[in-house]
């Protein structure tokens, strides 16, 4: 049977409509969050002020005054940036070795790395807490960076491995014949050729680090606390202050949403794992 390309009514009208519905569905929580962040705590729970209310900046102003937003934000930036850098520093050589000099165990090693992501974080909560406290690393940037790096390392290595695999081995071998050492191969050939993939990986890793909450909430109190901790802290014992909570949340997700917006292309590339060349 011949396959005929047809322009159905669905593809002209249906698809865009469906795309908009899905898009709005995903966007709605963000929209709602931002909207609520401009309401007073009292207005936030009243149905009559659903869309029409007197906007206020108090939640944001209070946030910087009362909670030291900037300290949390700085911590988030520091921990995410360094965790990403270290994850790449370990991930690039590992993925390089496995992509270009695979052994019989390579596949198993990769599967084992992935399997660590299947372990429920709660299962290692006690040993991790015990370890950090007895090492005196509780609530330190160092610990948060190490933990964020480790939990993202499997995905970083997997992604890099997939990108590196697409580089023909001949080109690396040509480099060897042209007299480069291993470091030269990585610096002169691998990184320039896989630049797009490395950037997508870094971006995704950064986002995962930024959004991480399970460990950052549990392994910090004040010194190394990130924005996740700030949000969690606003789950106030005095009751639920939706306006305030929304402002904190909006301020926490804001930077990453903006970053994601500017890097859409790389992100899509990263999430599809280089499946499409």
């Amino acid at each position, binding site marked *: 049977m011949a396959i005929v390309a047809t322009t159905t009514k669905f593809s002209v009208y249906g698809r865009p409509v469906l795309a908009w519905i899905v898009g709005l569905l995903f966007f709605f929580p963000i929209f709602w969050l931002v909207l609520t962040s401009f309401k007073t705590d009292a207005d936030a729970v009243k149905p009559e002020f659903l869309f029409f209310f007197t906007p206020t900046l108090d939640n944001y102003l209070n946030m910087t005054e009362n909670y030291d937003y900037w300290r949390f934000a700085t911590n988030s930036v520091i921990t995410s940036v360094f965790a990403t850098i270290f994850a790449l520093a370990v991930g690039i050589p590992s993925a390089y070795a496995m992509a270009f000099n695979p052994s019989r165990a390579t596949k198993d090693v990769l599967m084992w790395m992935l399997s660590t992501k299947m372990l429920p974080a709660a299962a290692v909560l006690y040993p991790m807490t015990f370890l950090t406290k007895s090492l005196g690393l509780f609530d330190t940037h160092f610990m948060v960076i190490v933990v964020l790096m480790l939990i993202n390392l499997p995905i970083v290595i997997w992604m890099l491995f997939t990108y590196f695999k697409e580089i023909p081995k001949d*080109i690396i071998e*040509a480099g*060897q014949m042209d007299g*480069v050492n291993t470091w030269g191969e990585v610096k002169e050939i691998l990184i320039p*050729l896989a630049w797009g993939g490395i950037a997508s990986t870094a971006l995704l890793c950064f986002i995962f680090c930024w959004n991480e909450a399970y460990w950052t909430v549990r392994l910090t109190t004040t010194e190394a606390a990130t924005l996740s901790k700030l949000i969690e802290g606003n789950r106030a014992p005095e009751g639920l202050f939706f306006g305030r909570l929304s402002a904190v949340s909006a301020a926490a997700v804001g930077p990453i949403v903006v970053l994601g917006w500017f890097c859409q292309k790389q992100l899509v590339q990263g999430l599809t794992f280089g499946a499409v060349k």
Partner: protein
Amino acid sequence: MGRIVLEDVTKSFGESQVIPPLNLTIEDGEFAVFVGPSGCGKSTLLRLIAGLEDTTSGKIVIDNEDATQVPPSKRGLAMVFQSYALYPHMSVRKNIAFPLRMAKMSQSEIDKKVEGAAKILNLADYLEQKPGQLSGGQRQRVAIGRAIVREPAAFLFDEPLSNLDAALRVGMRLEISELHNRLSTTMIYVTHDQVEAMTMADKIVVLRAGNIEQVGSPLDLYHTPRNIFVAGFIGSPKMNIISGPEADKLGATSVGFRPEHTDVSKTEGMWKGRVGVAEHLGSDTFIHVHDTGLADMITVRITGDIAVTHGDDIYLTPQLDKLHKFDADGLRMA
């Protein structure tokens, strides 16, 4: 200098031995061609010399120095890959300059050498382009340029022409031969195409299943193949090999005769057959003959044209002084 000696070199991948103990010497300045059917180990052998594969045992000596454990980057050899393996993110100029830059040569010297290579290879107009913008032949030239600027001890070519179309292949074949004449540097060239081997080589190394079947000049191999395999592999169209009563009559277990060493007549001759396909090339005619009782098909080559068509009766007579006789083991009889 580029004398390369392989001493009892073996290579195994896991359990399977692809190169059984092998000894070979390639003299300085020689154009050596490794030829054989696919899977015969010729590329593996080249990669062993390059250092891209580790030997399982044995020794590789380059210019009287044991290079067995030396990494590829330090062997002083240059390689041209079948896929060209150019650096796609660099311009032609940077591709050619790359090995020089890695050797920490001064920029002025690099520029001079790159310009020189570009002139030899007709690449001067393309220096600022990226490999992706070039045709196959131009890419191959860039790959060769990248190899020659380093003035290596030897060039290694891994089926460099097999990605090019037929016309370009003939042109590039000439260019590489000319390059060899000009540089007089050792070249090792891997191909499965016996025409390339015959036309370019000083020395042909015929390989089968990792074993060297014969080493010699193209005409040595053509005139005195050591065994049936080499006899059948070198020469185009292939040598006819017959066995059975007719071979016995000629005094051997198997007898080979080349298509061009067979006389043809429409009226009389040693063997009678029927024309299958006749290929008229103008300068030559190839006739594929069936029903001779000798083999499924006998091929003959006649200079000029002859008026035969499918189904015609034809008589064949091999030139008796040019017969190749082989014993029961398939080895050439003296």
